[in-house]
């Protein structure tokens, strides 16, 4: 569980983070999106008890970030923006070092190291120094470090950056598995497709403030308005036939049909399809026009820059 209220961090007169309220329940993934320097890393650092909040509070795995910093840090697995590996240590030595830092006994350390290296495909390179690793291998080793002590909370900064598609898929699968084992996870990422795939909730942070927060659908509704549907028709129909269908607001016509906006698709769409068929219109398909997280994010940024959000 990750909670914060009015979490704020000022560096002198610079307001890095201002009044952040978040709530990530066990089994939930929150994607923290924002430009570079928006305050994502500072927020994560406060939730890891590295930085003291100027105002507000945060609670991670039940521990207050100010009152119980050691317990917070013991409960969190952190993947930092820079992988942070010691280049002259082998993967085994590196994971063993952090296993000892987290006070795992020798048997458990060995078991976890074997499991993680094998899962991330690093077993063969386990005795090579990490300085010789490719970027993707380093990222996987850093992720393995974050998971070594099986923490209930994970704070992951760009978890799949620099990875090849197969490795990225592997990491996404692992995050999915961790989510289903009731971990609370925050992902800071610029990879919006990944955020869309993994996140249950999304928070968009701009100049230290959380502008918007909610499920992807809630953000779509709020920023892009009601959903748009596209009707694909076979040839031989007349646009004037649509005039007699009450409640239909055509947004625009396409080469093969038209698009319309609907506030309540579950009620409106069946009636509309019936009306189209009654009008003898050759309906081939009715489908929602996809609206990606990227559109939502870019719209949010535009509105924020204009001061409209």
């Amino acid at each position: 569980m990750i909670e914060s209220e009015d979490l704020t961090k000022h560096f002198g007169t610079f307001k890095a983070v201002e009044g952040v309220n978040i709530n990530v329940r066990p089994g939930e993934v929150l994607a923290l999106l924002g430009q570079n320097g928006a305050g994502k890393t500072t927020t994560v650092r406060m939730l890891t008890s590295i930085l003291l909040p100027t105002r507000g509070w945060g609670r991670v795995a039940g521990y207050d970030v100010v009152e119980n910093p050691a317990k917070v840090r013991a409960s969190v697995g952190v993947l930092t923006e820079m992988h942070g590996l010691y280049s002259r240590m082998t993967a085994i030595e590196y994971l063993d070092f952090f296993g000892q830092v987290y006070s795992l006994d020798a048997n458990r350390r060995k078991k976890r190291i074997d499991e993680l290296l094998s899962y991330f495909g690093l077993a063969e390179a386990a005795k090579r120094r990490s300085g010789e690793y490719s970027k993707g291998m380093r990222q996987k080793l850093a992720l393995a470090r974050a998971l070594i002590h099986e923490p209930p909370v994970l704070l992951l900064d760009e978890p799949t950056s620099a990875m090849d598609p197969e490795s990225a898929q592997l990491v996404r699968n692992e995050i999915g598995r961790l989510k289903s084992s009731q971990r609370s996870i925050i992902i800071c990422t610029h990879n919006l497709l990944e955020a869309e795939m993994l996140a249950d909730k999304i928070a968009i942070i701009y100049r230290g403030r959380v502008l918007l927060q909610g499920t992807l659908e809630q953000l779509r509704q709020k920023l892009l308005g009601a959903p748009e549907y596209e009707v694909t028709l076979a040839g031989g129909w007349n646009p004037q036939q649509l005039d007699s269908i009450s409640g239909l607001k055509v947004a625009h016509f396409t080469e093969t049909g038209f698009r319309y906006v609907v506030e309540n698709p579950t009620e409106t769409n069946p009636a509309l399809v019936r009306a189209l068929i009654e009008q003898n219109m050759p309906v081939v398909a009715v489908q929602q026009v996809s609206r990606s997280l990227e559109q939502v994010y870019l719209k949010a940024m535009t509105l924020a820059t204009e001061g409209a959000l």
Partner: protein
Amino acid sequence: MKEQLRLTWLVARRELTDQMRDWRILLPMGILILFFPYLMNYTALQAIDFVNEYGGNLIAERIVPFLLMVVGFFPVTVSLIVALEAFVGEKERGTIEPMLSSPLADWHMYVGKLTAGSLVPLAASYISIALYLLGLMLQNIPFPPLDVLVQMLLLTAVQTVLMVSAAIIISTQSTSVRAANLLASFIVIPVALLIQGESALIFWGDTEILWLAILGVAIVTGLIVRLGLAHFQREALLGREIDMLNLRWAFGAFWASFSGSAAAPAGLRWLANRLRKNTVGQRLPKAIGEDLAGIKTWYINQVFPAVRRMALSIWLTVGLGALAILFSYLFVSAQVRGLTLSADALNETANTLQGMITGNGDGFSLSVAYLFFNNLRAEILILFFGMFSFGVGAVLIYGLNFALIGGVLAAMKVIGLSPWLIFLTGILPHGVFELPSIILASAAVLHMGVRMVTPNARESIGEVLIHTSADWLKIAIGLAFPLLFIAAFIETYITPILLYNFFQ
């Protein structure tokens, strides 16, 4: 406790493993260990042969321990490079954040890195010393005395920890390895001066003072380690992103702390307006009046609270002063015996005092300015030595000043004069003002050192230095310097009359 030590050693062991795998550390260390002792053996042999030709046996004798110190010191210099990048290097490479996100406490990391930074260079240094001694044995050059040998081994150890701990502080306060390397001169220069001083002591052959020097370096090293522990914080490592000396901010903070207000004095504002040829604003008499009226407020809101803040330091300083007087009085009384003051000497003293009173002496006369600036210089010296030694240097100079009083009084007793009467006529009249002045000025410097080594999560080292320097200046301008001036006036015009009457 066992768990705490395990975690500290874990950090140290990782660092040590890293060092032992880095050829850039191992190679120079190896060269210094293998080549340098041989070179110093050769140098010792040649130097001894050379000075013996001219009968300089004493110099030859002292060259051996001096070169021993040199042999021990050179491998230690490598520690500086390792320690300087201990934190800031990890920050630059991004390896620090996983450590900071772990359950390790701040002090586990600090002490772990301090241990690792000191161990390898110290081991290299001791191996070098052993090889040097082996070389001496093979060349039939006599070993230095055992106490000198122990001194050199201890000196090498405390200097290593001194350099490493100072470098780690620089590393925690820097934003880049480059900045840390540039700041290293703040370690190199004092250590170079220290080595020169130690060399002089070795050639001088005064092992007792060398013991004291080792003790002094050990105390300062302990205080630097304490300073590092007090100010090492995760927050400071990642929160500090600005890599420049903000003099404007520093001066503003100092002025606000000193005056209690961010605004400049009215007189200065008037002057600034004049310089800008701006005739609008306060007139000079009004501006001066405003500043004068503000003095009382300044005393109430700034000076007296500063005195209250440093109450503990003041009591400590008073206690140390009393002890210094007592010990020197007892020491001189016990050591100096059988002295008498002849009637001629007594007359001569009386004549000198009469000359000072009338101004018709044989060239020696006192003036208020002379005495004031002489004592002012002493208080500035106390500040200077105290600032660079966490108050230790200040306390030493202060103690010596007070010891002089005890020594003089004891000497008076030995020659048959009443120390009480000397104290009442020659010291007390101006001492009533001079002694509180020196006590306050020294206590303010001691307070500076105490505040520096006291853990404080709300202030950085720079902020503590600014606030305590402002406190020192408040005490100096508000109390110590005016008291010195009054003391100088009394010492010039009243004390000689009282003393003259006493000697008559």
